[in-house]
C-alpha cells in the first residue's frame, strides 16, 4: 500500500478551499434560503469534511479495509439519524410554528 504524499503546495490548496467554503457557508446563512438553508449548510460542511478526510486524513490513499471502517461509522450514523427522525418528525408536529407571541 503506497501512501501518495500530499505535497506542501497541495496541502495549502486544500486549506485555501476549506477557508473559502467557511466564508461561503457564513455568507449564505444571511441569505433567505427558506427551507433549503439547512440542506445547503450541511452540503457545504460535508464538502469540507470530505476534503479533510480524503486529503489530510489520507483516505484517498488508504487501504480498502480502512475505507470500509470509515464508511461504517457514517453508515451507522445515517441509520441512527434517519430512523430517529422518520419517527419523531411524523409524531411531533413543530410546536412553535405559530408567529412569535401569538399564543401562550
Amino acid at each position: 500500500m503506497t501512501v501518495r504524499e500530499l505535497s506542501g503546495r497541495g496541502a495549502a490548496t486544500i486549506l485555501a478551499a476549506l477557508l473559502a467554503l467557511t466564508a461561503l457557508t457564513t455568507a449564505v446563512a444571511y441569505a433567505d434560503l427558506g427551507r433549503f438553508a439547512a440542506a445547503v449548510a450541511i452540503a457545504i460542511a460535508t464538502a469540507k469534511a470530505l476534503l479533510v478526510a480524503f486529503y489530510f486524513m489520507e483516505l484517498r490513499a488508504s487501504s480498502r479495509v480502512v475505507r470500509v471502517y470509515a464508511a461504517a461509522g457514517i453508515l451507522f450514523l445515517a441509520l441512527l439519524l434517519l430512523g430517529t427522525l422518520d419517527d419523531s418528525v411524523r409524531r411531533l408536529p413543530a410546536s412553535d410554528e405559530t408567529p412569535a407571541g401569538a399564543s401562550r
Partner: protein
Amino acid sequence: MSDAAGSPVAEPFEDLEQERAARRLGMWVFLATEVLFFGGLFTGYAVYRAGHPAAFAEASRRLDVLLGALNTSVLLTSSFTMATAVRLAREGSGRRARAWLALTAALGAAFLAVKGFEYAEKFRERLVPGASFGVEGPHAPAERIFFSFYFVMTGLHALHMLVGLGVVAAVARRLRDDGPVELAGLYWHFVDVVWIYLFPLLYLVSRHA
C-alpha cells in the same frame, strides 16, 4: 517500536508495513466509535431543531458568528499545520516536524481561548441553562434546549481538543518514528471534522431577517 531482538517490528507483525496498517486501522475503528459518540448528540439536536425551528433560529442568532467563523478558520489551519508536521516527520525532518507540531498546538490553544471567551460572554448574558437562564418570551423553553445542546456539544468537542493537545505534546517527543505522529494527525483531523459540522448547526441556523 522495537523489541528485545532489536527488530523495529513489534511482536505479532511480519513487517513494518503490516504493523503500520494495523495501527492505522485501529485508529479508524476508534474514530468510527467517536462518530457514534457525537452522533447521539447530533441526532438529539436534529429532533429538537425539527420540533422548534423558530426557537432554534432565534437562539442561534444569540451566538457570535464572527468568533465562530474565526475559530473555524483557526481549527482548519491547525489541520493544515498538522498535515505538514506528518509530512516532515515522514521525510525524516524531526526538528521541523516538531516546530509544526508546536504551531498546531498553539492554534489548538487559541481555539480554546476563544471558546472560553465565548463561554464567559454567554454566562454574562445569562444564556446558560439553569436557574439564572435569562431568555424570556414564547420560545424561552426551547431556546434553553438549544443552549443545552450548544454547551454539551461544544464542551465535548473542547474536551477532545484538550486530549488532542496532550497527544500532540506526547508524539512531539518521539519523532524518530513517524507512526505515532500520523495517528495523532488522524485524531486531530477528526476533531476538526466534528467542528466543521458544529459551526453551521449552532451558529448559522438562520442569520437573515
